[in-house]
């Protein structure tokens, strides 16, 4: 086996571990940035952890033969050494060099992932060498004396305890939650090995009893504790998090396979349900109930299984947000703006695939906010606003939907300028004020920009048009709020996952359709007699206003069944809301989404197909797309009419 084939078998592991280290490095650089700003010594624990990450990256990059990454990681490590060993302060210049080095490292790794040639690294390496911290050591603030140990806690690992989840890492985590570990060291007692922790913290009787039950020996610390310097570890090193040894890495495609298999199970179960329905009359009632109960239990278990697999794919949204401070720092450096960044809901979990797709759009919105929306300090003071602009990034999840918000308190979108620019591009636009949906549509038009100069933020990959397409490709929704002089807020809503979903089953004539439930705001009943015509469109009275109505039968050229009432799904919010009318709604089902990849059957408004268990293929409707399509055409008629 050649070294190349050996390394090739580990590339997925390599990239996954690089991602973990790079994410940790970003977090640690932020911490160092805070220290550099206050001109204090770099925090020891952060430097140590950073050092170890570079060291690991150097090791594994060497193993896969990625020389540029190995060299960069080596130089980054060397750069940190004086900080670690000499207590030197990190200068602004040093921090910039460090950030540039990390950027380069990330690019080198990404280039291997995309099978491109690695970018040159000489300039970055030279910059790191120039900025190497050589200034005199900073006087460290007098460290507060560590607390005196109150307890000596001994843990002797055993297979029995391990089976109960009690191991050195969980014991350590438990102690850390309850107080401060001052020292931890393995000890030899006869031939057996035990860990001894010197611990400070308030322990109550129930806690002590619980710990003893889990095999820990808890004793008051002897006075004074023997300070055996050679065998003890500095307390700072004890603060490192538990190693990733209980984490399993899984290739995303394997999870997709699992999801597909679960999808097949869901369909088989639906088939079973259908066949059971046919034999119902032929089986004694008592037996029948037992069968029925079993299939219901199976349905619930299948749902749990599906949710379990879905959860495995989720990662905290903080992974996207972590880059934002660097982008902001970069953009504000010489711009005369000052920005306070507020990150909220970083723990919100979102599908790994969605995160990767949303990274560039989110960064684009951030760049726009910092370089276009937020005013300079002078402008803000003149306008009576606080000198520092605020950029808020928030993530939250509501049911099966993840909501991302990017908001600033800047100058707001200049409607007049947008309208003028749109008209110059040959778009037909009514006079302001425009509703927010229309305004968003304009700024997302391909090629749209109100800036004529090329500033730092332009030409960096994606424009608003791409932001919009990405969100729509992910079956998401974007909305806009903006007020002149007060600020702008973009809200992006995304479905949590795409493969299996809850749907409402509806019928028009003899056709059956499935509608993903997450996009439906409301189900209403319409009185056909109350509908009015406006040009080619129908509108229905709704909560004191009107709601455009789209008859699904017309879209798919199906003759509806004559009936007294129509049922409709309300989709979209505010000015974009629309009612999609059907004959009747049959029920709610869990459906497996199969995309229609064939270009010949790519139809706007159709998200895919599913099998409800009776063998017939049923179309899954993309109601938001239908609604957008219809809303645009309706708006044209209304604008023409006014």
């Amino acid at each position: 086996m050649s070294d190349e084939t050996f390394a090739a078998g580990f590339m997925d592991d390599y990239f996954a571990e690089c991602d973990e280290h790079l994410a940790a490095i970003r977090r640690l650089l932020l911490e160092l940035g805070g220290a550099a700003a206050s001109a204090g010594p770099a925090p020891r624990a952060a430097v140590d952890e950073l050092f170890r990450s570079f060291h690991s990256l150097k090791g594994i990059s060497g193993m896969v033969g990625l020389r540029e990454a190995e060299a960069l990681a080596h130089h980054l490590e060397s750069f940190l050494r004086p900080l670690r060993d000499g207590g030197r302060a990190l200068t602004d210049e040093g921090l910039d060099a460090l950030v540039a080095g990390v950027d380069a490292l990330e690019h080198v790794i990404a280039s291997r992932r995309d099978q491109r040639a690695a970018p040159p690294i000489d300039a970055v390496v030279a910059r790191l060498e120039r900025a190497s911290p050589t200034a005199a050591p900073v006087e460290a603030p007098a460290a507060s004396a560590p607390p005196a140990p109150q307890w000596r806690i001994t843990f002797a690992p055993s297979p029995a305890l391990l089976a109960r989840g009690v191991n050195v890492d969980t014991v350590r985590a438990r102690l850390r939650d309850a107080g401060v570990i001052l020292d931890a060291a393995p000890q030899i007692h006869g031939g057996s090995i035990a860990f001894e922790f010197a611990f400070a913290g308030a322990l109550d009787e129930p806690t002590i009893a619980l710990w003893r039950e889990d095999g820990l020996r808890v004793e008051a610390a002897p006075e004074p504790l023997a300070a055996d310097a050679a065998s003890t570890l500095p307390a700072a090193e004890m603060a490192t998090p538990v190693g990733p040894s209980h984490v399993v890495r899984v290739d995303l495609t394997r999870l997709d396979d699992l999801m597909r298999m679960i999808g097949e199970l869901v369909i088989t179960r639906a088939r079973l349900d259908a066949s059971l329905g046919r034999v119902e009359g032929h089986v004694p009632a008592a037996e029948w109930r037992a069968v029925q109960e079993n299939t219901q239990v199976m349905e619930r278990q299948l749902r749990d299984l599906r949710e379990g697999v879905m959860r495995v794919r989720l990662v905290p949204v903080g992974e996207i947000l972590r880059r934002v401070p660097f982008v902001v720092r970069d953009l504000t450096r010489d711009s005369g703006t000052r920005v306070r960044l507020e990150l909220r809901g970083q723990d919100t979990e979102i599908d790994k695939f969605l995160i990767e797709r949303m990274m560039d759009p989110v960064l684009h919105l951030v760049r726009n906010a910092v370089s276009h929306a937020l005013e300079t300090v002078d402008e803000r003071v003149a306008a009576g606003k606080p000198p520092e602009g605020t950029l808020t990034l928030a993530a939250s999840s509501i049911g099966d939907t993840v909501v991302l918000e990017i908001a600033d308190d800047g100058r707001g979108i200049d409607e007049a300028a947008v309208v003028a620019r749109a008209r110059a591009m040959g778009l037909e636009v009514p006079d302001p004020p425009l509703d927010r949906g229309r305004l968003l549509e304009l700024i997302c038009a391909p090629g749209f920009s109100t800036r004529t100069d090329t500033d730092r933020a332009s030409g960096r990959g994606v424009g608003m048009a791409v932001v919009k397409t990405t969100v729509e490709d992910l079956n998401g929704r974007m909305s806009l709020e903006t007020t002149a002089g007060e600020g702008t807020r973009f809200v992006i809503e995304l479905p949590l996952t795409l493969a299996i979903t809850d749907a409402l089953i509806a019928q028009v004539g003899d056709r059956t359709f499935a509608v993903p439930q997450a996009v439906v705001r409301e189900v209403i009943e319409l009185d056909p007699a109350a509908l009015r015509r406006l040009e080619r469109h129908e509108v229905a009275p709704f909560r004191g206003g009107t709601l455009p109505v789209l008859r699904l039968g017309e879209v798919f050229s199906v003759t509806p069944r004559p009936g007294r009432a129509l049922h409709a799904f309300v989709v979209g919010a505010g000015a974009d809301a629309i009612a999609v009318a059907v004959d009747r709604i049959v029920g709610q089902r869990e459906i497996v989404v199969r995309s229609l990849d064939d270009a010949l059957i790519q139809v706007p408004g159709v998200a895919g197909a599913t099998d409800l268990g009776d063998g017939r293929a049923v179309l899954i409707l993309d109601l938001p797309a239908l609604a957008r399509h219809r809303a645009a055409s309706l708006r044209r008629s209304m604008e023409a009419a006014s």
Partner: protein
Amino acid sequence: MHRTLVVDDSPTMRRMVMASLREVCSGGFAEAASGLEACEQLALGPVSLMVLDLNMPDMHGLEVLAFVRRHPTLKTLPVIVLTTRGDAESRTAALGAGASVYMTKPFTPQALAAQVRELVAQP
């Protein structure tokens, strides 16, 4: 042959080591991501060989090695110190602390397997 204990804070590196030794180490593997975890594995069951990284969180590889050599039965355990190249001072330190073999990363699977064969064959 008992288990081979692979100690490294990088999971990728541990898998590379295990892949290199799959045919040589018949007793299976145990893994540890830190020095303390390594000591725990030594307490939990018999080990025939340890492949040990040096630069690790919460207990340096050299401390693990010193601990092993203080233990009444583990003191004869074959230990391969496998560390990232460029840490010049550590060869002397590792051999001084009782490493059976000192190797640097990047390594080739063949070289590592050959070292282990040689160690295991010793009486």
